[in-house]
């Protein structure tokens, strides 16, 4: 093939591949993703209106293209994650909040009434007084990790209690 008819000389393409992958790794891609995006950038270069004027401008063009594709990929990932999240939230809403949007609240009140006083106090400190875990830990002489663990246990207990009460 006559080299003047292709958009980028093959030797230049080979030379530019490595720095392009390096750049994509810097952006946060794992090795496979970096290879994929580099490949897509080269394809775009070959398909698009690109005129080869040397390695440096070619690398700049490839970097910009790869960067855009990287960002587009992130947006797509974020959209997929958001969709998965809203689907899950909808299922939980239907199951616990129900048609009234507040079916779970009477159950939660009943479950709260069954809690030991110390757990109840812990929840008030956290949710009503807005105190941080560190502040609660300092006031009670416990570690922050211990406070976090206890809050999680109380919340798990409440969650299971609410689900049990709402079970048909």
């Amino acid at each position, binding site marked *: 093939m006559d080299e003047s008819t292709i958009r980028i000389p093959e030797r230049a393409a080979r030379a530019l591949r490595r720095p392009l992958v390096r750049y994509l790794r810097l952006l946060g891609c794992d090795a496979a993703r970096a290879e994929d995006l580099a490949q897509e950038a080269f394809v775009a270069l070959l398909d698009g209106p690109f005129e080869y004027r040397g390695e440096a401008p070619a690398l700049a063009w490839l970097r910009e293209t790869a960067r855009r594709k990287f960002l587009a990929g992130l947006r797509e990932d974020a959209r997929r994650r958001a969709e*998965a*999240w809203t*689907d*899950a*939230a909808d*299922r*939980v*809403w239907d199951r*616990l*909040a129900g048609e009234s949007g507040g079916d*779970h*609240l009477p159950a*939660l*009140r009943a479950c*709260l009434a069954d809690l030991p006083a110390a757990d109840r106090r812990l*929840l*008030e400190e956290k*949710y*009503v007084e*807005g105190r941080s875990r560190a502040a609660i830990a300092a006031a009670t002489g416990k570690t922050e990790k211990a406070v976090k663990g206890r809050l999680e246990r109380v*919340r798990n207990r*409440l*969650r299971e209690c*609410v*689900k049990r009460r709402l079970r048909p």
Partner: protein
Amino acid sequence: MIDLERKAEDRLIDLGLREVLAEEEIAVADPPSRRLRGVLELAAVAAAVLLLLLVPPLAPRGGLATPDDDPDAPRLVFRRGDDGEAGTVATMLRRRLQLAGVEGRVTAGEEGRVTVDFPEDVARVTFDRMKEVLLRRGMVEMLPVAPADVVPEDPGAAAPPGYRWVPEAGSKGRRLVEVPASSKERFTSRDFNRSRIGVEKGAAGLGWVVMVAMNRERRSPPGEFEARIAGSVYAIVVDGEIVAAARVVDRPSGLFLIRGGGRDGFDRATAEDLALVLSAPPLPARVEIVSSRPPDPVPSERLVVPGERVGPYQLGQPGKNADTTGEPGVMIDWAIAGNAVVINIRVTTDRYRTAEGIGVGSTVADVYRAFGAPGTDPDEHDGALAYPGIMFVPDGDRVGSFRVHYGTEER
């Protein structure tokens, strides 16, 4: 997928806990039904008689006193002025106290009353500030100030179509603001990202600035919003009054700076109060003060904070040449360091008192008892004070004025 559902369940429980616990706290504070109250009152009388018989008398300010039973504890009682749940008002007021970092117990009671109990040692300046902040309904609008060529020459003239006059807080003046037809151009506190509002010391000459970030929805499409709003002068209207004429400057991070109108910009206290109003949700109803019981002036009053501020005036404000504040009876002069920052404030007024209650008009004997080195000649006040940061200037046998110093830099 299951993990996500578990996460969503946790979040729903979290939100439910906030709602239910806040409601229950208000319900506990609300008086019980009348019949039950009668029984409880009888029980309380019986318990009180028993306590009187069994327990030795406590000192008047004993450690067991609570805001409810201490008739001297600082307290504000509000009443909602129109329809609105007292419980919701209480929650909003509680939120404002939290944002201000001020301790206080908020309870909703009968007839729409909401009581705010402050700790016994709350500073008077804090009490007064919170009184003002809690009283505001907090309906915020940010409206473009009308360009000069639109403002009628006759200040009494009606506003041109698409504009309206808005009174300026603290003065008899008013300003013409644009009322954009499109809701896209109108901003209220709902458009702010409330978790990203704060204050910072601006560049020289800007004073303190308030940082505001708009919600992502209002910043869409990215770039266009910033371009539209950047450089415009906006009036920050709170409850129908302009509290600041602000210039909004775009920043790459999506934050906007609101700087005070006038030559010197905001002082720190004004910027913090504005940030607080912008950060807190508005009250669902107007409130009025039914009763106010401020803290004792001595010893808790802390209008003078050494090295920081005297009343509303504080170190670090841009220097002024004027010796009056526009406030009747308050005379101030400023000592300015080479970097044009105030390092010394001298106040001449009978309103400001030190942490120990010493103020203008106090006798020199009082001053020396509190601050002076024993045996110091009263005339050697400049170098003989034991209390760093404050200097008194005697006038006869009384304090003529006092100065607040920035460390040891000023003389």
